[in-house]
């Protein structure tokens, strides 16, 4: 089993854990962390599958480099929105849904 294939399988597991965390975690900070874990899993799958024969693939590495930088921009934007919600509502959770009148 080449490192590429092994880390691609790890990436799948990380993606599944992260996706479950995004849906199940009520606290927004935890959702953001889960989103980052999901993204890292996807990057591992990208590079791992491209290199599963043992070579070095520069194109997928360049794409993942772009992806890492864009994912931290998305994290920062999500954190800005979460902090704004905290300032206005007092806690970092989505407001409880009220039944329609």
């Amino acid at each position: 089993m080449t490192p590429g294939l092994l880390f691609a399988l790890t990436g799948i597991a990380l993606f599944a854990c992260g996706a479950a965390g995004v849906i199940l975690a009520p606290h927004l900070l935890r959702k953001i962390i889960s989103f980052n874990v999901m993204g890292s899993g996807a990057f591992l799958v990208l590079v791992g599958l491209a290199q599963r024969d043992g070579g070095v693939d520069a194109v997928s590495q360049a794409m993942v480099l772009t992806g890492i930088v864009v994912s931290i921009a998305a994290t920062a934007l999500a954190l800005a929105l979460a902090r704004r919600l905290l300032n206005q509502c007092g806690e970092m959770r989505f407001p409880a849904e009220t039944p329609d009148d």
Partner: protein
Amino acid sequence: MKLLPRLGVTAVFAVLAAVLVHAVLNLPEPAVRLGGAVDKALGQSGVSHPVTAVLLNFRGYDTLLETAVLLLALIGVLTASGQVPGSMRRLPSTPHAFLQSLARLVSPLMVLAAGYLLWAGSHRPGGAFQAAAVLAAGIILLYLAGLLPANAASTSSLRAGLLAGFLIFLALAAAPLRNGALLQYPVEMAGALILLIESGLTLSLALTLAGLFLCLPDEFEEEDD
């Protein structure tokens, strides 16, 4: 969330993971091997490191748009922060003296490391993104040590610096349009053009990444009545 929906979601994702693992283990041979194609074309790209060549020459369009996406994210953070536009956050407490001395000692070294990473990207692992990350970390360290002036964030030269990287890249990408091809650098100038683009990118991305940290919403803002 109740237990049963929780178990349901976990089971769904476990099934997804199992299906994907099965798919990955039974993949056919790859139809295209891009690594070899990059190595063949590396001579014409102007740099000798394949990842830099792909980022700034072969797939330069993606990098150009990525710079724009980062600027959009910064605009989003500035909009969400709800304070005086473009101002930095206040520090919650005075920094420790040791942190100040450490920041004074380390930040010139970080600038040096960023410059080296930028230059080394043409023939070794490195490049604009790594250099920008180190430079942004230096700026944030200076802010956390209380050494950045409070009005550093609202001048027009800051805005010029943020836009410079994207505009230089756009100008150099659009210049060959007269000959009908976007981003088609002339081969003999490709190395110098890539270095110029990377320098602009390093500065802009460092300011953008630092701005993403420095312009987050504050806990001291006025409460809406």
